[in-house]
């Protein structure tokens, strides 16, 4: 499988995104599998942001830091990427970046700026570079020109044609460079790419909510969770859903509670700091048995931390959020397809069990995109509600712990929901017996949830000595390494459901060495395993610099631990 990594780096506002968009679209339409992930600074202008675009003949899901082609848009990019540059890296840049590259690196000058000026507009530079990069992979020229024309359609016929010409000039320049420097980036096309669609994690979550019947979205802007709200608000009119930006996260979560209480299907999207403010609302949902679906896109904390970077540090926050005891579900989608399907499923589970469901993603997953198979669309939503008669009691002490949930106005009865401890009607009580009975009733639901817990995915050597334990967005990267080093008796168990936790004791006991792989400082998931399964995982590979675990990082860590 031939795979190449192209990295575009520039200041915010320099057009890196435009080039990325044109390049990935042309490549995908030409029949290549694509993958793109970005790392960016918390600023609107300036700084250095980079995008890693991976191109392959087969589906790509894992993150690799290797750079085959680096295209700096500004000075400083080469130094910013220094650790990712190797002997095989080719830098394509303006002549004035040569000094920064140094002598040991293949530097190929590209006069895109000059070409753009000659073509009459400095802004053509992004189109030229897109064309140039497309030519390296022998992408379809016709697709390139058509796409560029469509992109600049609304800027007028002239500009649209000029951009298209600029793209072709870039394409020619690329061909020239390949010939002159004897470069070849041969990737086979795959006809099945045409059937796939391209989604980023945020879009997968957004579409998953719609497929789950969500009709009320409440949020307060916070990176990296805002993208989901923006996606949803742009579909609100057409999908006939309510999307409202509230005054703070406290209001956002309570509004969602109010929406579910009133018979809607609420959804909240936030990040760690915002979720911290929602703990009180979590607790209310727990006591009043109101469903709740919260998307928590993680970024490094504490406090403001690194607003635009990635982490898996909010597991404990999500697990313990809210005072008192009550059941909950924690999902951590492993990839984009699961970000869609688990989000959809969250609505049904929240509704059915009348509990909070938290979907833990992270900046990496939200911002990463690649081509995936078209996800399934549901046929029907099951509203787990009942028509109330005059004898209706909201909190009936039932065998299963689930008390049929009514909605105000549905039927002739009424319902009382309550954040205080209550009797079966929902009226406040302080009776000791009833207090215990109600708490037990609510917690009984956890027994059913445990039976329905998603089992972790096992990959690698069946006769493993070393077992890696991972969760969330690192799945495909860890899987790649485990498969590559299958002969080293390496295997993995990967979790998309964090809580309730599946019992994996048998797997753990069979291993000589168990290593937790996580993107937080302390190994929060390993601690949860110890608490739930009484198994201590001593060895841990932890990354907490705000950057996603890459294949290279994992290889290095495993080598240092003597596994590889």
């Amino acid at each position, binding site marked *: 499988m031939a795979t190449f990594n192209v990295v575009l780096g520039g200041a915010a506002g320099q057009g890196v995104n435009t080039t990325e968009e044109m390049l990935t679209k042309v490549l995908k339409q030409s029949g290549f599998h694509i993958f793109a992930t970005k790392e960016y600074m918390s600023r609107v202008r300036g700084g250095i942001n980079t995008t890693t675009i991976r191109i392959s003949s087969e589906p790509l899901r894992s993150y690799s830091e290797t750079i085959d082609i680096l295209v700096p848009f500004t000075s400083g990019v080469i130094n910013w990427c220094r650790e990712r540059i190797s002997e095989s890296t080719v830098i394509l840049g303006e002549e004035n970046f040569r000094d920064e590259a140094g002598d040991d690196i293949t530097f190929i000058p590209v006069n895109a700026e000059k070409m753009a000026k000659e073509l009459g507009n400095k802004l053509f530079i992004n189109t030229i570079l897109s064309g140039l990069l497309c030519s390296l992979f022998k992408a379809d020229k016709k697709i390139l020109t058509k796409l560029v024309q469509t992109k600049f359609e609304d800027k007028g016929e002239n500009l649209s044609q000029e951009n298209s010409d600029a793209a072709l000039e870039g394409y020619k320049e690329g061909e020239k460079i390949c010939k002159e420097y004897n470069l070849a980036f041969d990737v086979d096309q795959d006809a099945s790419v045409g059937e796939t669609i391209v989604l980023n994690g945020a879009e997968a979550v957004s579409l998953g909510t719609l497929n789950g019947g969500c009709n009320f979205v409440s949020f307060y802007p916070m990176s990296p969770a805002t993208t989901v709200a923006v996606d949803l608000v742009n579909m609100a009119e057409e999908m*006939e*859903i*309510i999307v409202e930006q509230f005054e703070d996260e406290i209001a956002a979560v*309570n509004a969602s509670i109010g929406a579910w209480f009133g018979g*809607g299907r609420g959804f909240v999207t936030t990040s760690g700091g915002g979720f911290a403010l929602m703990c009180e609302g979590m607790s209310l949902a727990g006591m009043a048995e109101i469903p709740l679906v919260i998307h928590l896109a993680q970024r490094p904390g504490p406090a403001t931390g690194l607003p635009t970077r990635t982490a898996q540090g909010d597991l404990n926050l999500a697990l313990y959020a809210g005072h008192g005891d009550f059941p909950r579900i924690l999902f951590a989608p492993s990839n984009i397809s699961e970000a869609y399907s688990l989000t959809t499923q969250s609505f049904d589970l929240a509704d059915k069990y009348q509990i909070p469901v938290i979907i833990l993603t992270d900046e990496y997953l939200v911002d990463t995109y690649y081509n995936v198979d078209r996800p399934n669309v549901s046929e029907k939503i099951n509203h787990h509600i009942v028509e109330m008669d005059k004898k209706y009691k909201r909190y009936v002490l039932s065998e299963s712990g689930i008390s049929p949930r009514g909605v105000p106005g549905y039927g002739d009865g009424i319902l009382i929901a309550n954040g205080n401890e209550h009797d079966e009607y929902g*009226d406040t009580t302080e009776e000791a017996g009833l207090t215990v009975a109600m708490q037990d009733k609510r917690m009984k639901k956890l027994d059913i949830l445990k039976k329905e817990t998603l089992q972790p995915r096992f990959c690698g050597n069946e006769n493993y000595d070393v077992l890696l334990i991972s969760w969330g967005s690192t799945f495909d990267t860890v899987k790649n390494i485990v498969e590559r080093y299958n002969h080293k008796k390496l295997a993995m168990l990967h979790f998309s459901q964090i809580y309730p936790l599946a019992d994996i004791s048998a797997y753990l006991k069979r291993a000589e060495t168990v290593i937790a792989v996580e993107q937080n400082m302390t190994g929060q998931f390993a601690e949860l395993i110890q608490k739930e399964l009484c198994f201590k995982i001593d060895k841990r590979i932890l990354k907490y610099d705000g950057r996603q675990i890459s294949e290279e990082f994992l290889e290095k860590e495993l080598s240092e631990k003597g596994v590889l």
Partner: protein
Amino acid sequence: MAKQAKLFDSKRPKSKDISWCPGCGNFGIRNELMDVLEEMQYTPKDIAVISGIGQAGKIPHYLNANGFHTLHGRSLPIATATKAVNPSLEVIAVGGDGDMFAEGGNHLLHAIKRNPNITVIVHNNQVYGLTKGQGSPTSMTGMKTTTQPWGVYDEPMNSIAMLISQGCSFVARAFVGHKDETKEIIKNAILHKGFSYVEIFQPCVTFNKINTYMWYKNNTYFLHEHDVTDKEQAMIKAFEKDPYPLGIFYINKEKPCFDNHLPPYKTNNTPLYKRQPNFDKIREKLNYRSF
């Protein structure tokens, strides 16, 4: 004379033991609310009373109507959303001065701005009752409380002025002792389309020895010949004290209402709990991402 059963009087077991202190102003507000709703020909299933925490917040337990006894200060976002997803409900948010002005202050400010079609009733007794006698945002200067033993040093919050200044679309104040007038104000608030704010003066017989029934009676008067559409006049009246004006201060029927801008109801009034998503549209959305 035997008392006639009221439609909104709860027969549930716990409703019999009302935990307010004898003589509490909350009894009067509850009665006035029950009467208004019945007179307006609502049935219990039409109403949702969403309360915060405090003595006032207990009211859903003493009413035969849908209710949600929520968290301290959080009733307004909950009520806003409940109304948004279930528009045929008449949603009434209830809380005390601590609930609405202290813990829930930010939500109150933004509810004014958002202008959802709900009614809020604030039981203002100028002291914290349930937590036993601490000063509230509306406690009077000099009042000695359990947590301000030397007397409250600052000035009470002027909620009426705050609400009018922010353009709240219906602003009124009542005193629980005036039964008929209070009922009339509540009725108008419910009928108003938009965020209707009704502050009701009520004594706390246990912890507030200053603002008693007699004090409120002697220190209030009803607005007369007041133009409720005149914001400037309303603002002047809002700053009047000793005596404090009662009645409707301000109505703005032009203010954009949150509920009028909700996409689900542009072509269809079915409540959301009876709807299915448009799966074909979701398929279209997915197709669009074919890049």
